[in-house]
């Protein structure tokens, strides 16, 4: 039940979060920017448009958008949003489902036989390979004290710890997971979601041969992934607004929205303040994130919290 609520909230609110980030970024850069609701219009328009499919492709290219959307939405359903409910949201499964989406997208890119999509796939798989250890290190830094990789149990254990879960160890883990969130959502400094220069794009590069309805599905899936990752960070680090932690439903809803808004604005700020990294320096950034996860455990042992 809570899974379905998480799923619906993620799918319905994902374009709104995207619009919020774009608008914030535009304002920070002294631009007017598109309306906040523009991503809804974009997805809606794409879903009703015809598409051009490369002659070289097989069924993999056609099936990939559905696999990507399905697996990403399933990942979103694992994230505790309003309350924990039935417990089946596992951290490793979350990572695995995101990996399924990435795998399908990279295969679709290879199916298109274009050097640009191939370049995107090569880079995406390379980056994701170094994102995985950072993600697991960040999650393990939280899971080790709680003794579980179940998101629901994890966030409740953290809520039960009270202010202890705001100790330095927690902040190091938060920093690790924020870096991972930037990489997972394909944002500056790892990737640039706004570029249309073939040589610099990663995620967009893989989608270069998609158009119309399948592109709309891919775009929606990317937004769902973004809201799921940010929602997860919110649930793990500010768990007190969850229903099981004693908050009423309205507070749970407001808390969820507020956490997403704050994290979204943070992403927009980071994107404005930083330039895209040269791709060969991306592993350093993610290696730092993994090291922060390890340091978080050390800090917890040394300082408590």
């Amino acid at each position, binding site marked *: 039940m809570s899974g379905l609520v998480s799923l619906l909230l993620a799918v319905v609110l994902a374009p709104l979060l995207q619009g919020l980030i774009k608008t914030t970024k535009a304002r920070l850069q002294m631009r007017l920017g598109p309306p906040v609701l523009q991503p809804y219009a974009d997805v809606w328009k794409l879903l009703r448009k015809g598409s051009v499919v*490369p002659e070289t492709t097989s069924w993999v290219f056609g099936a990939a958008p559905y696999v990507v959307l*399905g697996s990403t939405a399933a990942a979103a359903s694992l994230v505790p949003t309003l309350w924990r409910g039935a417990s089946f949201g596992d951290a490793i499964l979350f990572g695995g489902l995101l990996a399924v989406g990435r795998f399908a997208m990279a295969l679709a890119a290879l199916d298109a036989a274009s050097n640009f999509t191939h370049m995107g796939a090569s880079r995406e*798989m*390379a980056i994701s*390979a170094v994102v*995985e250890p950072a993600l697991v290190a960040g999650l393990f830094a939280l899971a080790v004290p709680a*003794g579980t*990789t179940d998101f629901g149990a994890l966030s409740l254990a953290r809520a039960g710890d009270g202010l202890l879960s705001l100790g330095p160890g927690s902040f190091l883990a938060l920093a690790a997971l924020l870096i991972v969130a930037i990489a997972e959502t394909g944002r500056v400094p790892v990737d640039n979601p706004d570029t249309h220069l073939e040589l610099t794009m990663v995620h967009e590069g893989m989608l270069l041969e998609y158009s119309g309805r399948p592109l709309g599905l891919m775009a929606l899936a990317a937004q769902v992934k973004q809201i799921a990752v940010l929602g997860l960070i919110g649930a793990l680090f500010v768990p007190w607004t969850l229903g099981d932690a004693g908050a009423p439903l309205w507070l749970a809803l407001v808390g969820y929205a507020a956490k997403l808004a704050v994290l979204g604005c943070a992403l927009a700020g980071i994107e404005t303040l930083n330039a895209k990294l040269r791709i*060969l320096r991306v592993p350093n950034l993610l290696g730092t994130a993994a090291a922060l996860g390890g340091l978080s455990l050390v800090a917890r*042992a040394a300082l408590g919290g």
Partner: protein
Amino acid sequence: MACSYSLCWPVAALSRQSKFREARGRQTRRQPLAPAVLVALPLAFGVAGLAAVLLAGRPAASRVVAYGVCALVGLAAAAAALGVLLGDGRLAVGLFRPTPFVTFGLRVDPLAAGFALALGLATAGVSVAALGYARHYDDQGGPRLAALYALFAASMLLVLLADGVFSFLIAWEAMSLVGYLLVTHEHQLDEVRRAGFVYLAMAHLGTGFIVVGLFALVAATPGNPLDFAGLAAGAGGVAGGQLTRDLVFVACLVGFSTKAGAVPLHVWLPRAHPVAPSHVSALMSGVMLKTALYGMARVAFDLLGPASGAPSWWGWLVLAVGLLSAVLGVLYALMEHDLKRLLAYHSVENVGIILIGLGAALVLASYGLPATAGLALAAGLFHTVNHALFKSLLFVGAGAVDQATHTRSLEHLGGLIRPMPQTAALFLVGAMAISALPPLNGFASEWLTFQALLGLAGTGLPAVEVGGLVGAALLALTSGLAAACFVKAFGVTFLGLPRSGHVPTGESPWTVRAGMALLAVACAVLGLFPGAASAALGSAAALAGQRSAPTTDLGDTRGAEMLGAQLVDGLRQTHVQPSLALGVALLVAVGAWVVLRALGPVPVRRGVVWVCGFDLVPAMQYGSTAFAETIRLFFRRVLRPERHLTTAEWALAPYFPARLTTRGGTPALIERHLYTPTMHALLRLANQLRAVQNGSLRYYLLYVFGTLLVLLVLTR
């Protein structure tokens, strides 16, 4: 030592025999069938081999009968092993006793059954595929190949069932030698003979260490028992104490790691697997490597006494070897562009993952956490079964590609999904399983391995916690790189446009697809119901949780059984639900499809790929090397890729080259820096020994005389 054998043998043998009979009597009442069937099956494989030889005049009939029987025997082995695991049946059979202290016997216990399950499932699938795949060997010694294949399966099963040091070593050596004959089946080729030599040399290096380790253990154990139960019971009173146990452990670790292909002893693996016929590589990679892991588990958890008495550095050492093998194995796999070599390096990676499970189990047991240790061993065993399945599937798929296109080089493949759609789909299942993607079985066992590493936190020691986190991060890196590698392997082979004239005319034989389908279904079932699968292995994993209290009665396994029951319950509770996630994903995907259909159809047009306005040519696509370029650069400090400018013609030196030729690649650093210097040193030593071994009879007589003198002086 020899005199102590003869003195205490009669008593020890008598007591052992009575214990055998006791154990046998009690167990036969409870579970008569499954273990008895399992013990008989090596003979059944032998019958398949014999049939292949008898029908040698008619190669096609020989092939169908031999592989058909092997498939059935494989299924029977899997069923019997499952019966043993679920019923916890044990059995010991003494076969014969040629000299007073040499006994040959077979024994079935849950640990052996866990590995026999992997053997049975993989052999069944691979043998079905071999029915069609081996057709092109019909006129190239097909019957010999089929007979050796059946013998290979028989010897591997014997290794798992052997009771006692002699039986084990003889089965082990038989397996190695039959393996050599299989690897060198196409011995007309230079490459094959060289690979065979490396295989044989490394196999015997490993066997040497195992012989030393096991016989040292026998010599140090009071009463010098040769059967496993006697060794395990006497482990507490080993002469020399902990130092002996440490030395035995290290010797066995080195020996078994050589066979398992753990870094840095993996060098034979990427040579031997590609040159063997594909159904043989499937069995070698899927099953033979696992017999080494079985040996390691047998020694570490059973023969050296309960793992709770082991020092924790044993576990850390195994864990470190596992992590090193996992990361380096997958990195070198990414750099490969020979499909079968790539798969061979992935075996190194997966052996590493299994070793992570075993190592974590040893560490946890040594810190006094038996239940979590059992979970870690269950993770290792589960991954053993899973790897046997998906690696066999992938090797059979690679064989089908090789057979259809006559090349294994990824740089020459592409677009095979059009002529071979079903082979491609089945290969994709294997690729997703090995990349640890839910809801397939690779994910389930890696999930369990992550839980085992999380379990290290149960010790409450910060250093151990951080060790667990580092292990988990490296395991995650491994699975991320594996996903990249299989995007490459599947995408470059089956998707896009053909990169050369190596284009197949049609699908692979239906039996090949049927064998692959069998393995793929098994991958999916084990992935969707991981709780049941790992709980079935729980009784085998209970071995890791044995207490170090001295067990006097060998037949008494009740303590372990109780722990097994606890562990099974624990594994059922600690579960993840990939099936539910699959349900949600399907719901969303189908829902999206239905909603979009309701929105109305949209025009779909076929168009050309956009490549900056040029005409698309296949050479524009990324090949295998290009795809891995980003990762090669990310890990350049580890891999040290090389590029040498071989020729250059300048239009205007040094700024405008007219034509440049470069050669490059990723050198095998371990071979260059470890094996080559060792080889040279050995050769130099051999050269100097030639002064002694000079071929003159007079000198040899002198040596004999000298040796006699020395012996006489020494023994007095």
